């Protein structure tokens, strides 16, 4: 049993999540998804949300051990089923709600001894489809934040040094600033400026070159770079991930070519994937190798016809606070902000313009991927050069030695 962390810090973190992350508006229902291990932060978030004027705070606690029992013992069809009421909950979210996800894996390797094909295929498919569609349509304000736990600290440091993890998290999410809200305003403005620079270049592709990596990712005419704060269709500004250090866009699902080697491990729902190498041809993953967790990746890639195509490419430089901690957090929310990454699975449609109102088949036809999965993995670092390729074939250096090459 770990001691409860300093209450002031938890409350400040909760305020950041509610006011900067989700930016909860008076009268909104707030839908919190959390895990039983994260009760202390969840409670602080509920208090903060009511303080911000929330109408009702709905907390849906999950439990990794109950999930493990399901993956191990439940009938096959249960693994992908969505309980009817969860769809009603999505309807509630879409009816003017805000969403806060509290993440953090207290036991990153909990699922390691299970059948990885079952681990990889477990997800509420219909729920995922409807939820992602609403996210992509910008229907509501949402954020994801992580709660540090002793188990995560143990995985990272080899000892349950929760205090040290809290310090790393606080630094990563700028809680150490005198005025975290102002610090976030400055930070999101800087990321926004990067997206404008990149959009002005009208890139046709992004190229990564480094050890084990020679990858070209085609972009679409409709691709737009995003980063920092987002905006709902109703104009509510929110920061979808705490922390966030990335600028990212939607790739052309048909035009990924070459090989890529991950530069960091990847925590994938209770399994740690190490040494992942993928080869792409005409957009599709055609070869998968990994030192650990290969089966879980393969199961995910087989989840549906589109899982093996890219849905996101993201750039992160060496000024990243997450990267500067030098830690592998066993949590994608943090780890994807340490360095450049790509995601196989569904496309980040809000990083595009001109696709409004199109169905999944039309989107795929036009190069935007639609799938039930979305998994980020890290491919950047000091040894990986990143170039932008313009339509006329000229290359624009974007990252060298982890340093951002465009003027700031």
């Amino acid at each position, binding site marked *: 049993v770990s001691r409860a962390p300093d209450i002031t810090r938890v409350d400040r973190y909760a305020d950041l999540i509610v006011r900067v992350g989700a930016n909860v508006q008076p009268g909104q229902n707030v839908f919190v998804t959390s895990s039983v291990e994260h*009760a202390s932060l969840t409670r602080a978030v509920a208090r903060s949300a009511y303080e911000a004027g929330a109408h009702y705070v709905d907390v849906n606690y999950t439990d990794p051990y*109950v999930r493990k029992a399901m993956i191990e013992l439940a009938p096959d069809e*249960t693994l992908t*089923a969505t309980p009817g009421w969860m769809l009603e909950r999505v309807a509630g979210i879409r009816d003017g709600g805000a969403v806060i996800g509290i993440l953090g894996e207290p036991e990153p390797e909990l699922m390691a001894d299970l059948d990885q094909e079952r681990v990889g295929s477990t997800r509420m498919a219909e729920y995922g489809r409807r939820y992602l569609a609403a996210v992509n349509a910008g229907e509501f304000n949402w954020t994801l934040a992580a709660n540090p736990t002793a188990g995560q600290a143990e995985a990272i440091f080899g000892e349950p040094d929760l205090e040290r993890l809290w310090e790393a998290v606080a630094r990563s999410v700028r809680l150490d600033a005198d005025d975290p809200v102002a610090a976030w305003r400055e930070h999101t403005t800087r990321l926004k400026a990067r997206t404008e620079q990149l959009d002005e270049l009208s890139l046709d592709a992004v190229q990564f070159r480094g050890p084990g990596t020679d990858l070209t990712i085609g972009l679409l005419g409709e691709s737009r770079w995003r980063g920092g704060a987002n905006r709902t269709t109703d104009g509510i500004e929110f920061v979808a991930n705490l922390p966030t250090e990335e600028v990212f866009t939607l790739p052309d699902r048909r035009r990924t070519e070459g090989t890529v080697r991950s530069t960091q491990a990847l925590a994938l729902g209770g399994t740690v994937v190490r040494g992942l190498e993928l080869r792409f041809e005409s957009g599709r993953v055609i070869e998968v190798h990994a030192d650990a967790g290969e089966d879980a990746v393969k199961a995910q890639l087989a989840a549906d016809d589109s899982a093996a195509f890219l849905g996101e490419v993201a750039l992160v430089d060496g000024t990243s606070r997450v990267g500067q901690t030098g830690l592998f957090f066993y949590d994608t929310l943090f780890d994807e902000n340490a360095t450049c990454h790509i995601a196989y699975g569904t496309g980040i449609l809000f990083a595009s313009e001109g696709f409004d109102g199109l169905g999944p088949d039309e989107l795929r036809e036009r190069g935007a991927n639609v799938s039930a999965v979305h998994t980020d993995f890290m491919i950047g670092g000091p040894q990986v050069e990143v170039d932008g390729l313009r339509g006329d074939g000229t290359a624009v250096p974007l990252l060298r030695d982890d340093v951002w090459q465009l003027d700031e």
Partner: protein
Amino acid sequence: VSDALLERYADLAVRVGANVQPGQLVEVSARVEHAPLVRTVARAAYNAGASYVDVAYADQHVRRAMIERGPDDVLGWTPPWLLERMRDFGAHKSAAIGISGDPEPDLLADLDGARVGRARMPELADESMRQVNDGLVNWTVIACPNEGWARKVFGEPDVERLWQEVAFCARLDEDDPVAAWRDHVERLDRRTRALNELRLDAIRFSGPGTDLTVGLLPASRWKGARSFTADGVAHVPNMPTEEVFTTPDARRTEGAVRATRPTVLNGNVVLGLEVRFVEGRIVEVHAESGADVVEGQLTTDERAGYLGEVALVDGTSRIGRSGLIFYDTLFDENAACHIAYGAAYAETVEGETAGLEGFNESTVHNDFMIGGPQVQVDGIRRDGRVVQLLREDVWQLPS
């Protein structure tokens, strides 16, 4: 607590309590503090062939934030997705396992009692009561010891000791708990048969501060540990249970009654409750503490102030023998005779309850303890003859 004890309780809850059937959807309702038992129950349920175990973890701190800081109109609001969830369980004829054991019984004590009383989801409570009354769900309630609960009971957070007491009360200390429960259920069944044969018209309680007559309906039937769903699945709704109970005629409760034990209500401890009834209805409420919470509950709807249950428990009760006040109705109601204001159970009525005069319908149901060695209990037959039921906590009928 040992994994072995957790597994004994979980297995008992799944196999005897809820009696989970292969392919059934299983609902588990618990607090976040109950995670160790919930996890074991989930495994046991899947091992019994559950199709899916849907766990709803409630968090009283989140609820406290709502009562303290939420808008007025949210207090009586039922989120549609939670109602849909409850309806799903009825529609699928699910199994349900509830976990009791309040980690912080006094958590809401400093809040506005009226707001605490109003912070309910009436549509959810209605749907839940409908499913129980229609026999749609095979369900049980068990308890998970935790630090806060142990502190309440012993004055110190001795969770291990509370586990031992709970194990005793729930017969987990027997070599074969399943066989022990079979015997126990049989014994309570014999009591209900004896009571049903008497065709009582009323029950009378007399003791210090208590002189209460609870009228029964001609259709009232006594029930013990075991229930059956409409489809005939046997289940034991409470583990532990020591009571036999029936449905009163809500119009015919008369007199005064003094609670003999504390009642925990929405996180508030109600001490020294005294209630007076006229023509079935509660017309006066006094308490040393928590009276406002009771009054808040009694105003939730028209019928909250009428009785929905009367139950008899004798001194052989393991809960009574533990000598403890558990501050938890699942246990304390099994220490002594009790009554409940609010909704009545259809399962203790012969025939249709729709339109039945005297069958109480409400969105609340709250038990409080009125029995003990100093309280005599008599049955009154239709012809006015009096039958002794309890004297000094000893069961007077053959059993």
